[in-house]
């Protein structure tokens, strides 16, 4: 089951441990790879509009660490970090990722993220697969929003919230 959105972000759950996000970009693969791996580029786009990236350290080599910290637009900080497990320029990145303060206890163990870049007809398809340590962790992260029965329960949740407003 895949859910798209007006901005072209598609989210799916191909296995019980994974969340997959796919997005196409009108740029060659080498450029997209640079944009997602070099701090001077990452600082320009990673985070919501209004979030300010205060730390962006990337040691792009196998075993190298990365760390991102933002001052969030609503106040407060969010930090995450990890390690590069596999690097194939410009097509593949495998990293670990963990939030400084996980939103759910079960997310504390973090994820292994696989980023694949494929170029087709001048566009680059970036596929990010976040693999959780357990199904429970994935479901917690996914909430009920992004897959089958889930989208439905999210609708129901939204309806419920409306009745409470």
């Amino acid at each position, binding site marked *: 089951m895949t859910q798209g959105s007006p901005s072209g972000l598609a989210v799916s759950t191909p296995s019980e441990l994974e969340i997959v996000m796919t997005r196409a970009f*009108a740029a060659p693969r080498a450029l997209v790879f640079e944009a997602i791996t070099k701090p001077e580029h990452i600082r320009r786009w990673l985070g919501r509009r209004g979030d300010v990236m205060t730390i962006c350290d990337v040691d792009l080599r196998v075993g190298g660490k990365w760390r991102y910290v933002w001052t*969030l637009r609503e106040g407060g900080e969010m930090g995450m970090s990890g390690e590069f497990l596999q690097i194939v320029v410009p097509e593949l990145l495998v990293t670990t990722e963990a939030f400084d303060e996980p939103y759910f206890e079960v997310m504390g163990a973090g994820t292994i993220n696989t980023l694949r870049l494929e170029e087709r007809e001048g566009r680059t398809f970036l596929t990010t697969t976040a693999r959780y340590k357990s199904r429970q962790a994935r479901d917690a992260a996914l909430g*009920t929003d992004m897959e089958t029965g889930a989208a439905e329960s999210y609708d129901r949740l939204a309806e419920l919230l409306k009745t409470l407003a």
Partner: protein
Amino acid sequence: MVSTDQPVDSLSETFAALADPTRRAILSRLAAGETSVTELAEPFDMSLPAVCKHLRVLERAGLIERSRRRQFRPRRLNAAPLKHAAAWLEDYRRFWEESFERLDDYLQELQSGAGDGGAEGDGQGGPKMKKGAKP
């Protein structure tokens, strides 16, 4: 994303509590107002103890509370965890949507400035781009 005063694991309890159709039905019923346990159990083809089990799950997740005002302690809905969970879901998606939209714009700017120190150049000084190009 959401900055939260709630304990980190309470969100997973919220989601777990919402995963069951009976419990969602109970919440919908309570959205209409305080209700006694007997009344809550009526529409379901299950024993009172079974309904009480669902109520305990909802209570642990902080989604319902017992009213102190009356003898029969009717249950009432506590919407705060629901709103918190919904906010988190929204944030998760928005974080990536906005980031990727910004990346999209940024890549366009890199390419329009190509040949003048773009991403595939020497990496010195960063690419030329105008700030806040996107409304």
